[in-house]
Structures are given as structure tokens and as C-alpha cells.
């Protein structure tokens, strides 16, 4: 391995650290070991890219929306709330 002072992270351990790495929560020494491993390991680079892609896809899933009935009921609720707050009532 390139850096004799740093024990290597094996692939099996790296896959457990991906979220900590992406959230920038790895201690500096571990982050360096993580990145050294990535430089040398094409398979873990693929794994990381798939992980990132999964996160991007999750952020682009179609959105749910409320039924027209629920929206109408909520507007009635809001009108009632507004009326009840008027001074003098």
C-alpha cells in the first residue's frame, strides 16, 4: 500500500463508511484511508457511485399530492380558524 503509516480499509469495511464519508463525518485519518482505498480500488469506486446515484434518484421520485376533497376540507378549516381569530368574536 502507498502509505505505510495507515492501515488499509478493506472493501468490506469501506461499504459501511459511505454515508459517514458523504456527510463528512469521518475523522481525518479515516477519510484519508477511505480516499486512498478509492484511488486504488475500481470496484469500490463503482460502489460509491451507485450509492450516490441511489441518493440522487431518491431525491427525484414523484411527489404525492392531497386529494381535492382533503384540500377543500383544509380550506374550510382555515376559513373557520381565521374567523375565530377576528377581534370582537
Amino acid at each position: 500500500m502507498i502509505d505505510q503509516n495507515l492501515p488499509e480499509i478493506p472493501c468490506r469495511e469501506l461499504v459501511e463508511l459511505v454515508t459517514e464519508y458523504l456527510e463528512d463525518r469521518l475523522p481525518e485519518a479515516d477519510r484519508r484511508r477511505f480516499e486512498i482505498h478509492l484511488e486504488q480500488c475500481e470496484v469500490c469506486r463503482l460502489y460509491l457511485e451507485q450509492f450516490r446515484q441511489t441518493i440522487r434518484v431518491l431525491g427525484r421520485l414523484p411527489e404525492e399530492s392531497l386529494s381535492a376533497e382533503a384540500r377543500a376540507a383544509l380550506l374550510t378549516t382555515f376559513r373557520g380558524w381565521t374567523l375565530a381569530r377576528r377581534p370582537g368574536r
Partner: protein
Amino acid sequence: MNAHVSNTPGIPLDDDALIGALRSGDERVFVDLVQRWAAPMLRIALVHLGNRAHAEEIVQEAWLTMLRTLDRFERRSSLRTWVIGIVVNLARSRARTERRSVPFPEEPGEPSVDQARFLPANHPRWPHHWAIEPVRWPTPEDDLLAGETRQMILDAIAALPPSQREVLVLRDLDGLPAAEVCNVLGLTDTNQRVLLHRARSRVRGAVERYFGGTEAK
């Protein structure tokens, strides 16, 4: 529709202005918020309530609670996060009442990837390195978001244990910051990250399996 930014012109964006508009009875602002926040509110309600109609009821109840307690809103989070937190509490308590879910069991630590896919510890050259590599899948994300593949991802999310699904929905689908998710769900920072990692790992594994992978989890 983007949950963070209103598409309707003239709708205020910052919380102070929103609260002011609600207090003054501005229906346009209320309707816009109901629409814009429907997705995150429904998603988190659906974690605990299997049924769509029940989830909509919880969303309506949450808005009522929100209006009733608006004057006491302490602004320790954004208005949106606060409302989502109200949904979390209502949905969890409804689920408890209906005994649909027992309190979250402590899940045993589960590996992100099936351990059988790595070489043994005593491998002479590459201990604990990949033995069975991840299966490559189509790289354009649009392919993953189309039809059947998208449904497979939604199914994978639905199959997550509730504690993982709550975090995944709030962080990755709704884009809430980690600190607000911890606050809303009552989790420590570390716990939040562990649950998020397990959930993401499971969804990645499901995608891989769909494309012919050997992921056993």
C-alpha cells in the same frame, strides 16, 4: 412541484412572512403551503399508516394542530420542519393506537452488503476485498426513474423498517438537514446516520438485485 420554493408568484418565502400571511387570513398562502408541503407530509404519514385515506386524515389533523398552535411556534426549526414534526407525532401515536406497529424494535446491526460477497479474512492477498462485485446498472438516472424501475424503488422504500424509512424519507426524499431530522424524530446524530446508511444500502441493494445482482439482502 419543488417543496422548497413556491411556483406561485407573490407568495412569501420566509417563515416570518408566511406566519404573518396565515395570521392575516391569506387563503392564497395557505392553499399554496398545503399544496407545496403535501408530499413531505404524506410521505412521513404513510411510513406509519399503510392506508392512503388515513394518511390524508393525519395531514389534515396536522394542519389543524399547526394553526391552533401557531402562536406558540418557537422557531427552533423552519416552519416546514415543524409541521412535518407534527405529522410524525400524530402518525406515530395513531399507529400505536391502532397497534399497527409495535414500538420500533432495536434492529440488530446489519451489513450494508451481503458478507458472502467479500473474500475471507484469511485470504492471502486480498482479505475482505470484493469477491462478487456490484452489478453495473444503467447509468442515466432517468432510466431508474422510469415506470417499472421507479415502482421497484418505491417498493424497496416501503419495505424498509419504519425507523429507517422515516430517516430516508426526511433526508433523501424531502431534503431536510440532518440536524432537523434528529430533532423531529428524536434521534441522536449518530443514530440518524446509522439508520440513513442502512436504508440507503438496502435501496441500493434492491436496485442491484433488480438489474440481476446477487445481493442476498
